[in-house]
């Protein structure tokens, strides 16, 4: 009966979900990094650190300021000035959740609140001297728990679909981002070297682990870690939940459902954009993509994802009042 949803609420649910997904991603990436570096040469470790910063903070960030993993852990976990640090992401997710507290259920709120309190209660020194893995792992677990509560308890109404949109738009953007930054550097290195080099192998596995993909990948390709398979899997596999293709499928499904729930006109721009991106992934061939340049393909995906985000806002959240008064 109560089917309408405030635009502001949709906005908060969407960002709550995106920020949690981002916190999850950052935690996993640092965790993977800290388990890889002990077996890496200094120069490779430095490059890896810089790639992480480019992915997780931004391409323009002055990497010279971060010359140890201790600094990196600070930057990505606690830094108040880095809006993508885990602390800031969790605080933003909680702040958004707080603004829609009456819309999410008590269990969801308490879960997000506990995650916030546990991050707030952790200090850099304690983390660094202790067992960082346990901390980052617990963040992943907390986010999964939140998503589990969400999936098993909330009605499949508009709110649910905005949560889904936030989660999958963020997730596919991150996977695309990681592929972009890592391939730029690692692929040329791999071509120069003989494939099978142990260091490079480590990096490819790191890439897969960072995308929560290593075990799922191995089930499809066995332990045969090859760049073109990695691209095929992370970009085009329609069954793996962290692949870009899977994410876009979910985005499109939620947009369709929202369209029906809100009586949005079928010809609306937001549906066309999602349909176009989905078709691009449905029919993508890994050989063609690599021949014509992975970078430009990923750039197209990123641009189209950004357009979908904007179209969602124009359709449901920031629409001009006058349009709706006339209706």
């Amino acid at each position, binding site marked *: 009966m109560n089917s*309408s949803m405030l635009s502001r609420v949709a906005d908060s649910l969407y960002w709550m979900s995106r920020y949690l997904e981002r916190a999850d991603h950052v935690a996993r990436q640092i965790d993977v990094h800290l388990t890889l570096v002990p077996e890496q040469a200094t120069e490779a470790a430095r490059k890896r650190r810089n790639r992480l910063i480019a992915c997780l903070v931004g391409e323009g960030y002055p990497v010279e300021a971060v010359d140890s993993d201790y600094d990196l852990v600070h930057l990505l976990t606690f830094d108040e000035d880095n809006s993508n640090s885990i602390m800031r992401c969790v605080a933003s997710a909680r702040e958004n959740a707080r*603004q829609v507290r009456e819309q999410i259920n008590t269990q969801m709120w308490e879960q997000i609140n506990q995650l916030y309190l546990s991050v*707030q209660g952790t200090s850099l020194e304690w983390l660094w001297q202790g067992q960082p893995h346990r901390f980052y792992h617990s963040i992943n677990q907390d986010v999964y728990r939140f998503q589990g509560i969400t999936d098993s308890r909330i009605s499949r109404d508009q709110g649910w679909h905005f949560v889904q949109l936030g989660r999958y738009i963020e997730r596919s953007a991150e996977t695309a981002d990681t592929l972009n930054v890592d391939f730029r550097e690692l692929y040329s290195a791999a071509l120069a070297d003989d494939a099978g080099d142990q260091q490079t192998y480590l990096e490819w596995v790191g890439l897969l682990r960072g995308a929560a993909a290593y075990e799922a990948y191995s089930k499809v390709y066995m332990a045969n870690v090859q760049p073109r398979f990695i691209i095929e899997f992370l970009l085009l596999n329609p069954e793996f939940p962290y692949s870009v293709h899977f994410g876009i499928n979910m985005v499109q499904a939620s947009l369709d459902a*929202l369209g029906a*729930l809100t009586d*949005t006109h079928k010809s609306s721009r937001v549906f066309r954009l999602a349909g176009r991106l989905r078709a691009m992934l449905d029919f993508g061939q890994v050989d063609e993509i690599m021949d014509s340049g992975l970078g430009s393909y990923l750039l197209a995906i990123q641009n189209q994802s950004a357009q979908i985000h904007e179209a969602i806002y124009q359709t449901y959240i920031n629409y001009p009042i006058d349009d*709706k008064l006339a209706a």
Partner: protein
Amino acid sequence: MLDTELSIQSGMPAPFHAYQLDDAYDEMFSSAGRPRDHYKRLFRRLMELTPEELEERQQAADLSFLHQGITFTVYSDTRGTERIFPYDLLPRIISAAEWDTVERGLIQRITALNLFLHDIYHDAQILRDKVVPFDLVYSSKHYRREMRGLDVPHGIYITVVGTDLIRLPDGQFAVLEDNLRVPSGASYMLANRAVMKRVFPGLFRNYGIRPLDFYGQALLTTMRYLAPPASGDPSIVLLSPGVFNSAYFEHTFLARQMGIPLVEGRDLIVHDARVFMRTTSGLRPVNVIYRRIDDDFIDPLVFRKDSMLGVPGLFSAYRKGNVTLANAAGTGVADDKAIYAYVPAIIRYYLGEDAILPNIDTFLCSDSVQCSYVLDNLDSLVVKAVGESGGYGMLVGPHSTAEQREEFRRQIQANPRNFIAQPTINLSRAPCFLEGQVEARHVDLRPYILYGERVTIVPGGLTRVALRRGSLVVNSSQGGGSKDTWVLHE
């Protein structure tokens, strides 16, 4: 058996060694070692529990509030720290007979105050009959000229009321303040009960406590009743100032209990004197607004121009009867602390009855004779600014410094209409669990009254506690806490 067992004890048993009994009415004990009937089972239970067990439950309760996010933020460094509102573990218990008097007294008082509001915004008969001085009404800063001649649905102005009651030393409940604007705290009453049931389930068994859970539904039913006649199945929203407001937890809590959207001013627009909210499927009409924003801020076109919290045009939609505000605008005039002194007369005027719940003696500084008495006795009186609430603008004479008294003397002389004074009342005390033992602390009681098709009063209310030893101030802004409040079935 129990009676004889207790009565032969002359002093106080172990957990009560520091328990203070004196002139103040004690909720639990009629005299040392003799608990009142309705406290006997709690007393016995407290004797069985070790301080460690109590401490453990107190911690469980505190943790539960923390995890629920029923907190406020203190900024001591760059990272904010979450603090919970102090909560006391031991319930405050009210017998069925006592509650019956309170309930009748509140219904009487609310009915009369509502008639008073209707009257002063229409014919003002009570002012013509000189029962209440007209200048007191028209000089009140909460009197809203804009409300004159406006008819509100069913003539109900004060939909949600939170009246502050205290106990006089003889045990009689008396009214300290009428809160008729945007009273808060109901969510704490409900949260306290929920936490209490979780951490102290054994205590509830066989005690026969009246439930509170229906509050959300009763609130919704009340709001539905107030919908403009033409609105069909009314769309009801709770209007909050937003996430930075200190009562934001309460707003989200109540909106969820009622199952209605929580909106902020920026979610609403007024078009053609109708109110709409901006939703994902376009603009949807709004018929009833349970507003948790003061009059001053609801509409920048009519009231404060600098308000960013309200909705431009809202008052015009209200005047046209297209939307209901609950509470109505302009109700603050009736909880003005100077009008308070006239409430017994107001009850007599409209209902022809004596007030069931007495007032506290009140001296009006607007009256020159009373004012000079107040100025001569600042060290023994409590002085209050008439339009303030929340423990602000208040001087507690016996606990004040000479400087503070001089400051108030200056203020009173500059604007006598703005002040009243009352004798310092020794509020009743109730047992609290503090630092490993049971101690007595001053309490008050804020029951919540809903005025719709009928008057609904939640059994109990929010008991606020002055946790600092000797303090008489229960407001949370001044070191106060709260505790669960039980009204017994019989």
